[in-house]
């Protein structure tokens, strides 16, 4: 609320802070000013949103995030949540009990046991199926959550929900909120980098990393793992270096003359800054993506060079290189939705495992070896889970069966960045249909991630059209304290 007369304060001065406080449209909300030390305000030359690193009100456990997003909805009872009862009741009808929860009713089959074998792994004894033999070796570094639930069984709204806690598009995603809250440690690279699959975009495309009503500077920037990493990072054909130098020089002189005639216009300086950052990015982005700087054993650790794992392995290794260089939030996607195993669970889901298992295990080991795991939060998970009943293939052949979407239970895990090691948290019912113990909602999951980064989900907001918009929305969300190493 601001009265008209408020701008005529006694000393007739409006500070930069007032200016921020009165921006109402979300371009640069005042949300964080109370959290910020002098670092941000030292930047008094600029009144535009920026990526300078900010201090948090409480100590952060994790400095950066690698989000391994498993689009499609990985099947909990085939990966991390063994259900012996499914073996017992295999083949029994169950559809009528869950009719309202099934997407493809015509193909709904009976209860189906997992085609994979489970065993307890590591010192902690976490259950993992034989579909993920490599990750199974890293369980002592994981916190597994078996009781995540969401609220929609359709990909698009469920994806919007897991990314932005709204079932519609147009809201800032987790990565945008994090970079809005924390800025970046690197001024040569974008704060929020998305490594999508060269084979194609996930469902919802670029909306998965949109900044919504936050300024576009907090949007995820796509880095391609081959060729030029950022759109227009380089011209299609490079001009000769001498020409480039002359052109930069001319631009600089014209802009300086223009600025010199217009004192007191901070945007003009800031705009010159964007050209400088763009030039720095040309160098830094290419360097960060240059995997030839890595040793052969490191590359092999990530499965680079093997046809199945090469692509995802490259992205995992790039992710490590990016967080080493100060990028705040790296998000990895796989093409389309390889975890959406409506059919061919034993074959198609196994293929998804094979593409990602070794690279992810390699990433965890590598981060640990380099002492980076403690300050990096690695997140694995999809947008929902799957049903205990079979979804039959078109020819009703049970061997080709898969599972349909399930919003009532899903599994996900964290590693590093302040979470406990070797913990299994939450439980589903005996068939794995719904989370029953220590249920974790999507906003809880979001609140926990923010907490690990030193942010409070209730304090991180922008004023937007009369509403205080937060990632976790108006419903209360809770940090899952039981999984934190230091509560």
């Amino acid at each position, binding site marked *: *609320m*601001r*009265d*008209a007369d408020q*701008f*005529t304060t006694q000393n*007739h*001065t*409006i500070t930069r802070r007032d200016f921020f*406080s*009165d921006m*109402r449209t979300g371009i640069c909300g005042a949300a964080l000013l*109370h959290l910020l030390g002098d670092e941000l305000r030292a930047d008094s030359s600029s009144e*535009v949103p920026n990526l300078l690193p900010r201090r948090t*009100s409480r100590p952060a456990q994790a400095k950066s995030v690698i989000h391994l997003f498993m689009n499609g909805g990985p099947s909990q009872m085939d990966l991390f949540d063994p259900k012996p009862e499914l073996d017992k009741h295999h083949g029994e009808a169950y559809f*009528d009990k869950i*009719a*309202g929860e099934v997407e493809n*009713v015509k193909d709904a089959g009976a209860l189906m046991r997992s085609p994979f074998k489970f065993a307890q792994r590591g010192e902690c004894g976490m259950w993992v199926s034989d579909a993920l033999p490599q990750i199974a070796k890293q369980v002592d570094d994981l916190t597994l959550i078996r009781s995540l639930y969401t609220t929609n069984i359709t990909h*698009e709204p469920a994806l919007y929900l897991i990314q932005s806690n709204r079932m519609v*598009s*147009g809201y800032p995603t987790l990565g945008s909120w994090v970079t809005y809250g924390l800025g970046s440690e690197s001024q040569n690279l974008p704060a929020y980098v998305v490594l999508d699959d060269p084979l194609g975009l996930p469902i919802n495309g*670029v909306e998965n990393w949109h900044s919504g009503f936050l*300024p*576009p*500077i907090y949007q995820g920037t796509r880095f391609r793992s081959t060729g030029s990493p950022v*759109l*227009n*990072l380089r*011209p299609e054909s490079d*001009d000769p270096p001498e*020409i480039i130098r*002359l*052109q930069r*020089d*001319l*631009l600089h*002189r*014209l*802009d300086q*003359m*223009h600025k010199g005639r*217009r004192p*007191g216009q901070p*945007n*003009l300086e800031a*705009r010159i800054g*964007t*050209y400088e950052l*763009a030039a720095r990015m040309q160098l830094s982005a290419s360097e960060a993506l240059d995997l030839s700087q890595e040793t052969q054993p490191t590359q092999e650790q990530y499965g680079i060079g093997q046809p199945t794992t090469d692509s995802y392995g490259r992205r995992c290794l790039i992710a490590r290189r990016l967080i080493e260089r100060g990028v705040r939030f790296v998000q990895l996607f796989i093409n389309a939705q390889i975890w959406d195993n409506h059919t061919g669970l034993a074959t198609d889901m196994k293929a998804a495992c094979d593409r990602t298992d070794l690279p992810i295990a390699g990433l965890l080991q590598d981060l640990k070896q380099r002492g980076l795991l403690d300050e990096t939060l690695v997140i694995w998970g999809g947008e929902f889970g799957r049903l205990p009943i079979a979804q039959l293939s078109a020819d009703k052949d049970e061997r080709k069966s898969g599972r349909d979407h399930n919003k009532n239970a899903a599994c996900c895990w964290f590693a590093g960045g302040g979470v406990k090691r070797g913990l299994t948290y939450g439980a589903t019912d005996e068939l794995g249909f719904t989370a029953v113990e220590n249920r974790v909602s999507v906003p809880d999951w979001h609140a926990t991630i923010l907490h690990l980064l030193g942010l*409070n989900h*209730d*304090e991180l907001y922008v*004023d937007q*059209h*009369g*509403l*205080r918009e937060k990632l976790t929305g108006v419903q209360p969300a809770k*940090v899952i304290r039981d999984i934190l190493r230091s*509560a």
Partner: protein
Amino acid sequence: MPISLAIDYHVGTTFRCLDSGFDWVVAVEQGGLPMRSIRLAGTTLVSTICWLGIAASCCNLAQSEENSAAEPKAVSFESDIQPLLKEKCGKCHGPNVQKSELALHTAAMIQKGGESGAVIIAGNSAESRLFEMVKQGEMPPDQQGTLTGAELELIRRWIDDGASFGKGSADPAREITQHDVVPILLLRCTICHGRHKQEGGLDLRNRESMIRGGKSGPAFVLGKPEESLMVKRIHAEEMPPHPRLTEVSVKPMDPEETKTLARWIELGAPIAQEEPDLAATANDPLVRPQDREFWSFQPPRASPIPQVAEAFRNQDSNRLHTPVDAFVAQKLFEKGLTFSNPAERLVLLRRVSFDLTGLPPTPSEAQEFLQDAAPDAYERVVDRLLASPRYGERWGRHWLDVAGYSDCEGRREQHLPRPFAWRYRDYVIRSLNVDKPYDRFLLEQIAGDELADYEHATTVTQELEDNLVATAFLRLAPDPTWANLTGFVPDRLEVTADSIDVLGSGIMGLTFKCARCHTHKFDPIPQRDYYRLVALFKGAYDEHDWLKPQLKNYGGALSAGMGERFLSQVTSAERQKWEEHQASIQRQLDALNAQPKTPELDKQIQSLESQKQPEPRIMALWDRGEPSPTYMYRRGNYATPGSLVSPGVPAVLSNPDKRFEIASPRPGATSTGRRLAFAHWLVDPEQPLTARVMVNRIWKYHFGQGIVHSLGNFGKMGDRPTHPELLDQLAIDFIRRGWSMKSLHRQLVVSTTYRQESLVSEKTKTIDSANWLLSRMPLQRLDAEELRDTILMVADELNDTCGGPAEPVRVRGDGLVLTGLRRSIYVEQLRKHPPSLLESFDLPAMNPNCLQRTDSLVPTQALHLWNDEAIRQLARQLADRALRDVERQKETAGAGSADTQQIEQVYRIVLGRVPDPNELTTCVESLAQLKAGWRNQPKAAGDASPNEATRRALATLCHTILNSAEFLYID
């Protein structure tokens, strides 16, 4: 003994006051002592004290619990609870004022609950909303009234002991009536047993038709649910039929719903005769007379034009051009400021050309204006620009932002195209170009279908078509309901809510959407009023009788008996042209088909077939009559319907003495007339917000910020006007001049205020740093469309064709989205594929619309302008154009080297002026070096001839100027 209540406040818990104007948090640390308190965002609340209050109350509680264990004493409603509620809550929840529809003065009213349902659950204080609110200190909202620990305990005990109301007050619990049952049947059954389909001859929309039943007999036996056919079928899970649920976007019956239905039948299917809820009664318990006193709910008031003080007049009298200037000068004077100097003529020309047409002046327009010494030269330029068809394209774009225009539906992976949306875009441009009065413009967009009888019209005129096309305004919200899985009732309600949001924030300047789930926290908008609006739209947006967006190749109706969503009433002229075209193809086909078949002939036939055109149609919204009843949804949840509401307008904006009447638009019309009545109400000159909101929006696009900065929020949480009298005066003038937007533009751009320069002086920087007083004009970045259109224009590549289907975008393998050569407003607007250049310069995502664009500064902008091949190509074309121009003017050209002439011509084309001596020296020097550079690169230049080096060097210079700050910013 641990304190029982303190368990709720375990370590790490934070309390916060949800959604209140201030926000406070107390972190609870080990031992239950407040170790620190964090104060947020300008609050003056002393949270620690507040917390101590709670802590103290916990202790009191423990005390009193121990006491009560020793000496139990029943709590009496009459002597303990009623007086307490009266004292603490009576001001807002009593007989006269009932915030959130809650009254606490009688037992019956307490039992009825508020807009979110029951507030007391007997025997369960933890689940009772009333107790929750007072316990957490959220109520009463003023801190002085906070209940003491003893008072809290009293309420807790009363509830936990069964919430007895004592003798005399115990009304029987409200019985189930049709209002509990109808919403269930609408949700689960009427899609197949309702208005459009009566499977098995059964219609379940009302009691009579249920008793009448279908082929298998009556739906129920009064008083005997177990013998009632419908209950039996539901229990057997035959109805609604599971395998068909998805197809009709229905969910199965909830067991609670079945119970409600059975109970209703058992009771004999009682019908409650409720008085219809009527809008605008004098004593509205939900909106108090003083709520109307807020500035924006009062009609605009005329104020005398300020007599600016003598000193100012002497200094600046010749500059007080218009009343606008007097209002602005007044405020400047009060702060010891005056207007900035007038902008240079060419600066002013560039500014006004961009503002009114989105394009810069051409070199010859600049030349003409410089040479025009007449006193009204500027005014004539303004008239020329307002008369240009480019005006509608520029201001149409602003309106499309408000409306949320897109060429596809959205919210699904495959974005369903809207093949006829362009007609709406063209309608907007056409309307603005002919200066259609704003009130008429709104009438058509909100209720065009009810303005004239289109169903029976024999000829469709352009005007009639426009009326229908205009209603697409209400069809622009992202709509995923064409797919079964995203076509359920809650998905449909999202679409309706988005449309109401666009209307509420974009046109009425109020954040109505908050009231979808609860009474607005800050503005006097009860939840009831939101649902009154919903009811107004129900003839067209009925979640129980929904028209799905039409799949492209679906000629006929979609699943579940849902009808067409396009109209075929294009103008008779267009239809005739199409029919003739089809007929002529058909004639040729008939002739060919009569001949013996050959491969050659088949080819010809195929080619002719492909020339057939799809039937021209219109994307529109229309009232289909017989809407289902509107129930408020408690907490916005469709599964918890509350009371029945009638169509009506927000109470705070209505004149209590003037009843809102809805009449059928024509005798015998299908249409209910609800939206037409609403539209007429909205454009009534007494309406306090309609004119103000639009005037403020137009002001913003000229002056960089609104008089009210929050364009979409004129409520309590919005900004106050910086110049309230001026805003009112403009609104009054706007209406008086027949809602003419062009005359408003004229009024604004001829003012001295608008003609100021944009330089910031030491004085204005100190006294008016954010330019709220308008002590200068702002330096403004070109927006996305201005930038792209101008680059095309200066390269002489802009295709200025008006109207018609959108120009498709191309998505390159790496994700770059490329466009053609038409103006940006005609480029296909796909939610997933915004053109890369426009996107990096803040083209908004329409979710559902955009009230205020951001002005970002990000490196992707630099990367695009600097590296993008299309921009580089346009720079080469710009250089070639400048070379051609110089060649052509050879005879007339004055002295100066060829380089100088080329540089000057580039400046004229791109920046509308010639370079100053410093710039010229820099450019001449640089051009010479660039030429030498290119000559030394024979390989890169491809052709080492001096001509080629000149071309390349000039292209590099042009590219630099397109990247320069002066090109991007308007003074």
